[in-house]
């Protein structure tokens, strides 16, 4: 559904709301609980967290735009929206492979650090989630870009915050039975609670 807005500042406000909304209020990790697997897996070190977050931003924006275009040019005209999931996954998988190869070539250090988590981007639900959501919400191309950027930047934000805490937890005297993923999940829960403070910020 296309929008017809003439006021430039209202336009900007609209985009700002989309960005803030998906970055903080409906943060994919903390309030929609998507992408938890890489969130827990790659948040041990700040450096890898940043690397992972950046590659997710890259992949998500790229795949969302691709999904948007495919949706617009192929799925809608031929009335095959029901194939959305299959086709999006296909596109995402291909894109991630590409990113993986690019990183391996350009930055071996980053590649080593991200290790097995790179292929995980394929199965990072945020990627498919964003692609599906933008078609559901009826965004235009710019909104899609902003929304997908906001969503993945929110993922990066969550990763960075979380990796800081986890680096600290590594030095903490945590009871034996709660070490590792257990304490990480509890911490994520508390963070999620605090992110609920943003609720109502964007209607």
């Amino acid at each position, binding site marked *: 559904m296309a929008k017809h807005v003439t006021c430039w500042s209202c336009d900007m406000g609209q985009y700002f709301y989309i960005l803030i909304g998906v970055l903080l209020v409906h943060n994919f990790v903390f309030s929609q609980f998507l992408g938890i697997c890489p969130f827990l897996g790659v948040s041990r070190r*700040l450096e890898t967290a940043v690397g992972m977050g950046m590659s997710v931003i890259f992949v998500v924006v790229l795949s969302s735009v691709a999904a948007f275009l495919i949706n617009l040019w192929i799925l809608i005209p031929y009335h095959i929206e029901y194939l959305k999931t299959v086709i999006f996954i296909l596109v995402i998988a291909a894109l991630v492979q590409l990113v993986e190869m690019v990183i391996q070539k350009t930055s071996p250090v980053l590649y080593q650090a991200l290790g097995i988590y790179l292929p995980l981007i394929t199965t990072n639900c945020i990627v498919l989630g964003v692609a599906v959501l933008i078609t559901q919400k009826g965004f235009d191309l710019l909104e899609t870009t902003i929304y997908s950027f906001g969503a993945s930047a929110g993922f990066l934000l969550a990763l960075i915050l979380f990796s800081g805490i986890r680096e600290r937890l590594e030095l903490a*005297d*945590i009871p034996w039975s709660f070490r590792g993923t257990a304490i990480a999940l509890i*911490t994520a829960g*508390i963070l999620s609670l605090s992110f*609920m403070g943003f609720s109502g*910020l964007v209607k």
Partner: protein
Amino acid sequence: MKETLILSSSPHIKSPETIPSIMFQVCLALLPAVFVGIYSFGARAAWIILLSILSTLFFEAAAQKIMGRPIAIRDGSACVTAILLALNLPPTVPWWLVVIGSFFAIIIGKQIYGGLGHNPFNPALVGRVVLLISFPAQMTLWAFPSHPLFSTVTDTLSGATPLGWAKTHLITHGAIPATLPFNIQQLFIGQTGGCIGEISALALLIGAGYLLWRKIIPWIIPVSFIATTFFITGVFWMINPHQYLNPVYHLFSGGLLLGAFFMATDMVTNPVTNLGMLLFGIGCGLLTAVIRLFGGYPEGVSFAILLMNATTPLLDRWTRPRVFGEVSNS
């Protein structure tokens, strides 16, 4: 045989300050607010505070017992958490809510992380936010102070805090009310609705003054916190006084003072460097103002501090002080 001597690494003298002494002084500084709370809300407030202390100490001791660690309830940190939690509850809450709150504060907020010193989040705030989100009805059932000391609260009504009242009005009428239910003076001395400990700015300032004088808490965090909130709310008030509250009103209402002086300054969960503390305070202030002005909740102090707690490790990392002689002078 000679008397055996003691050997240790230098230095051989230590300052008299200890963790229990710090915790004790924080408790002491909270007493004015406790008294005002009990004076305003009667025996019920006293009961909530007492219950909070008892259940918190119980959970702390039980957790340490189960984990096979020395029981350290005498270090006073659990007591501080208990009082802060109680002061952050409305005077009308049922007793089981207090117990649940202290469970989350001590067990989830602290002991699971390894106890005092390891918890990344302020335990009292963890307890409070869990309650606020899980039991919104009970947590927003306010009472007006009914002054006769040691009476039980009977008249309760919803949305009686100044901030909550203004927000409801803003949502229903599209503007804040022209005349506010409480004037600044009432807010300052504590004749207003709210949590047990947050109503009297005066009582909190007395306690805060004591802590600052004894250098128990750093001044940077509360000052930058309050100044940021004051500044942002002030700017919006100047832009549109019909929609946004007076910054002075913001300053003395809600949990801003309690949070800024007693909870943001929790040493375990805030940065250790001066610049880090400044950024921490500014961040708390910014988030508080944003949530208060634009968010769904009328009050954002708890969320703001918890969110900034999460940034503490990063702030510590990014704000290292300059090492002596580090910059080349040549």
